[in-house]
């Protein structure tokens, strides 16, 4: 499964006027891995996500996404919706963005828009009520049901998405992203606001997604219990610059990371390291 990189980010730079949010960032996410992007607040993690998913156009740099079949996409050249449609990169948002007035099931069916659009022959066949569209819609519902089952939301399928509890909304957002059949799933702080039990469930869900669906995951997270437990690889950002890159074990012991997070004097690092290990 692993080995080849699915996403290669090279010299990614993003400037907002005089502010350099990301400075020549290069990293790679391996296929079938969970890669975590961590760093203190304001380090530029979400900006990286917005560049990868096309919501920002990077000032410079290259982002190359390779599908298992071998097709490659240069993400910096694609519009946001095309990145989701062609390159099959799905994302969730730091501040949950569901369709609150629509039902949970509808949220998941909207995510399969492009498949259904084709099945409805751009609305015309659907308008006439042809059987092919009905079959496609039933398949879409089946897929939605599958993900509702996996995220434990099956009983809430016909409720408004806005009426779900916070943790359920987070899970629904992941389910919705998975309904687009992504090769790369970008999760922006999926564990934010979750309690310990819910974080545990999230870990299990992400592992399941990686193992059963072969979807590579890119993850921004502050919750170290999530990051350290499930990540195969961690990239640490501080002020838009990569300061460390490695396995959880390596990152845990990296003095630069500890300094960036805790902002301590160099001679105190050993003491802090000891605390982090326990």
């Amino acid at each position, binding site marked *: 499964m692993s080995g080849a990189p699915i996403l290669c980010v090279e010299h990614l730079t993003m400037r907002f006027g005089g502010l350099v949010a990301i400075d020549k960032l290069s990293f790679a996410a391996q296929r079938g891995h969970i890669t975590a992007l961590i760093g203190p607040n304001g380090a530029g993690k979400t900006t990286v996500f917005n560049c990868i*998913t096309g*919501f920002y156009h990077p000032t410079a740099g290259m982002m190359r996404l390779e599908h298992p079949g071998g097709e490659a996409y240069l993400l910096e050249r694609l519009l*946001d*919706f*095309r*990145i*989701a*449609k062609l390159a099959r990169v*799905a*994302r969730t*948002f730091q501040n949950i*963005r*569901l*369709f*609150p*007035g*629509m*039902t949970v*099931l*509808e*949220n998941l*069916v*909207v*995510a*399969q*828009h*492009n498949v*259904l*659009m084709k099945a*409805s022959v*751009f*609305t015309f066949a*659907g*308008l006439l*009520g042809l059987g092919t*569209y009905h079959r496609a*819609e039933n398949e879409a*519902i089946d897929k*939605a*049901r599958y993900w*509702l089952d996996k995220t434990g939301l*099956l009983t809430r*399928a*016909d409720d*408004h998405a806005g*009426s779900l509890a916070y943790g359920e909304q987070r899970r629904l957002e992941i389910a*919705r*992203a998975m309904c*687009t059949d992504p090769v790369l799933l970008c999760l922006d702080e999926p564990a934010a606001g979750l309690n310990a039990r819910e974080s545990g469930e999230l870990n299990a869900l992400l592992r399941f997604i990686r193992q059963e669906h072969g979807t590579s995951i890119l993850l921004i997270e502050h919750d170290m219990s999530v990051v350290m437990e499930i990540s195969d690889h961690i990239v640490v950002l501080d002020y838009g610059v990569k300061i460390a890159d490695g396995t959880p074990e390596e990152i845990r012991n990296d003095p630069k990371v500890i300094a960036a997070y805790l902002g301590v004097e160099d001679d105190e690092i050993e003491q802090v390291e000891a605390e982090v290990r326990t």
Partner: protein
Amino acid sequence: MRPSVSQTAGTQAVTTKLTFAGALKDAVLAALVAFGLFALMIGLHTDQGPTGALVISTRVQELGIIVGLVFAGALLRALIFGRGPVPFAKLVPAGWGDRAQRFSRFAGPLLLGIAVIWPFAFYHNRYVLDLGILILTYIMLGWGLNIVVGLAGLLDLGYVAFYAVGAYSYALLAQNFSLSFWICLPLAGILAAFWGILLGFPVLRLRGDYLAIVTLAFGEIIRLVLLNWQSFTGGPNGISSIPRPSFFGLPFNDEEDGFAAFFGLEFAPIHRIVFLFYLILVLALITNWVTQRMRRLPIGRAWEAMREDEIACRSLGINTTNTKLTAFAMGAMFGGFAGAFFATRQGFISPESFVFGESALILAIVVLGGMGSQIGVVVAAIVMLGGFELFREFEQYRMLVFGFAMVLIMIWRPRGLVATREPSLHLGKPG
């Protein structure tokens, strides 16, 4: 998801009961404010004197009546409700909201049944038939605008422009090329849809207030062009003697090849009115059918998703540009159909029929009915246009009553008369 009742109920806690003296004080204050407001506006009246010069007369009595009314009203209000917001929700008997929702379930077939027998029930009453046609026209316009505003969430204040495009398309095509109504109707719709897309392009990045301003301007541009392009549109004189529709080739006249003669009926001018009634009924039902159908198709769900969150839509690979343009085009197309119908019914059109007030009225129907609700549009159109007719005798106070009613409805049901949204699909029972 019915915040109206609970919200207003929540504010009751703030309301405090007042003693009579306190209420009196409140009422005096209210009367003073009313006096300050109306002393100049109503108390003084300018008129043309005998010599033609402007003279000022006083209207003490009228001023006294108004201030007295405000005083009495404020006193009653303070005594009954105390200080604080009036719990309007309480004024409506409990359960009415739910009853209205339940009513809306079977209201559709009921109203359709009434519409079908309407021409027979009022066969000899041309006035009532015309009113029915008018209401149906606005229902169709409301349903068309509902696609843009209710489903796609794009606030369009210039919808009447597409109505105008449809009407002028029909009038000009029919007059210059002698095309029949049945050929012109789709052409008018296509042309209006084309203009809808044309409007759509510059406003793709705009939302909310900004979009509203641009669409408002667009509506005015179309009207001004129609008004000033004298050689093409006839300018302020409009276009007259627009061909009347025929019954699939049979004209409504008293000649040998006419509708009445063909069916062996005695000729009556009302035949045409009845035909027009059924024509607009069918057109409106087509609008409704297509909209309902589209809501259950990916494009319709994408419209609603776009209303909820455009950024999330893009993150799911939905092309929001196309989605917006189709919404504008579909809405405009039905506006164009309605316009063509309007032209053939009136036989005469001029830019005066397509002023901003029309856009506002259609938008009010959509918002009052409950954005996105098809049956809501019907109820709102009947209430508003029926209300207009009822108060026709009180011409001067019509807008006053109308405005007051609208404020009350918006307090009682801030999300419109029929606020519930029917999901486009349900998860069937497993297995």
